């Protein structure tokens, strides 16, 4: 069955399970090229599961996911990544005993050309100069904020077409969160398509073009950033 979509990424009515437990129920969303879209919701709503379903870490039981004109819902995670979808996982998931340099190099695992890898690394240093000073430090010994920068840097090493971030603000001081969000915005302005999962709804909606609200595995609201920010339900539930 050939699927068609007018969008860069389109998730159509997916149901995802963890063994018997259903985590997603008919989730629909799309992203167009160059957009920054946010998915907000409270703990356990299914935000991470949505990202994992797109990236191939969880295989949806029903529905389809079309990326760049290709049905990818049955792809293994490494295949999806090869297509240009990068996921910065929740909790950063830095390889603790690889050095910062190795953590970055592994992001470009599929790239053979050493010059290309070096170029990309320079680009990452432009966003996160701090990483350059820490190249030989073990990833696991970095501070929380540094690890988040490294996790984003590692994903950028893939030069992804779509960057998905899972709660990049988690556990970080407000000033660091601000920095990270500025950089997310900057990357988007330079053309990167971004799907941003956040509990920090206020900041996410501020930089997003559009947003979706997920509740117990279902999308319950969507709209552009300003609309959602003004929405009574959203205000009550997430911006209190």
């Amino acid at each position, binding site marked *: 069955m050939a699927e068609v979509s007018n969008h860069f990424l389109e998730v159509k009515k997916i149901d995802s399970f963890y063994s018997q437990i259903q985590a997603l129920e008919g989730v629909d969303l799309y992203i167009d090229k160059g957009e920054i879209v946010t998915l907000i919701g409270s703990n356990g709503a299914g935000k991470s599961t949505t990202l994992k379903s797109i990236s191939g870490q969880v295989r949806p039981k029903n529905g389809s996911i079309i990326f760049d004109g290709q049905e990818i819902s049955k792809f293994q*995670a*490494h295949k999806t990544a090869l297509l240009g979808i990068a*996921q910065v996982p929740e909790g950063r998931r830095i390889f*603790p005993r690889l050095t910062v340099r190795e953590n970055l190099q592994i992001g470009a*695992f599929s790239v053979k050309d050493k010059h290309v890898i070096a170029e990309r690394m320079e680009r990452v240093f432009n966003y996160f100069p701090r990483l350059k000073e820490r190249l030989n430090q073990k990833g696991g010994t970095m501070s929380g904020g540094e690890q988040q920068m490294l996790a984003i840097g590692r994903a950028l090493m893939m030069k992804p077409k779509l960057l998905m971030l899972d709660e990049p603000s988690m556990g970080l001081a407000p000033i660091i969160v601000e920095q990270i969000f500025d950089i997310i915005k900057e990357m988007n302005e330079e053309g990167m398509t971004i799907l941003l999962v956040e509990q920090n709804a206020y900041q996410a909606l501020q930089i997003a073009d559009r947003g979706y609200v997920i509740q117990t595995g279902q999308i319950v609201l969507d709209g552009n950033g300003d609309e959602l920010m003004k929405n009574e339900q959203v205000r009550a539930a997430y911006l209190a």
Partner: protein
Amino acid sequence: MLAHIIQNLPQVLIDGLTLGVVYAVVAIGYTMVYGILELINFAHGDVFMTGAFMGAIVLFLLMGMGFLAALPAILVFIIVIVIAAIATGLLGVGIERVAYRPLRKKNAPKLIALITSIGISFVLEDLVRFIAELKTGNYIVTAPPMFNHKFTLNLHSALPFFNNATFQSSFLLVLIVTIIMLIALDLFVNKTKWGMAMRAVAQDRDTASLMTINVNRVISVTFFIGSALGGATGVLFMIQYGTIDPYIGFVLGIKAFTAAVLGGIGNIRGAMFGGVMLGLLEMFAASNLSIITHGAMGAEYKDVFAFIILILVLIFKPEGLFGKAVVEKV
């Protein structure tokens, strides 16, 4: 008493080192698989044993074709060890594919995989025994002698507190080849892209897959390398000790596993160190137990001695001597 112990020291070092490097390479096979899958692959000792038999088969074939006499021994050796290593490497990959991967797909508990590996261990032993008996009428096989030139180290005249020590040329072969393997592996793991992928998969498999790493392929590569090294060591064992049977992998496997635990399971350099240390301890015990205990215990208690050391280490340092690098779950 001390004088006796010192007299024997050179010989203990030679014999202990030979055994120790064998343990070290086999221990790496356990530790690599554990590091990546948290699985104690009990079949690994029997992969080592199968390597010894494959080496013997190739050696007999070459002998039958007259190559043993015609070619330089070292060339014959290289042919034998390379073929046996590749064959056991593929065997390891096959075992993982057929037995462990389906369990992993189903998220089966680790205990199931462990029991499976014990099952495979028996299958390999019986299979090799069956084939050996079919071909030779006996499951104990004596390989054609190679590298059995004897050397004596005349230490006594220069250093009167030492006895002379003897060794065969195969000792040098074992030492050189294992050291080459250990260094090559260390470089592979720490300096190459696939080695880095292997470490990444060991640290966080799910995240590694997000980095375009095909995790199943990395696991296959791990099994290939661990098994090939184990099989090659089987060939060295055959050449060093001459006689092999289908059960040599059992005790040796447990010792090598012990060595891996001693060094901190999951840690490759720890396994190397643990292996050499265990070999030295064991030979030290074999040579000196009867002296130390005034004849109450003979060399046959060497294993007890080695395991007591292990238990002591684990009581005071349960994570092994280099245990820091054991897979810590994020």
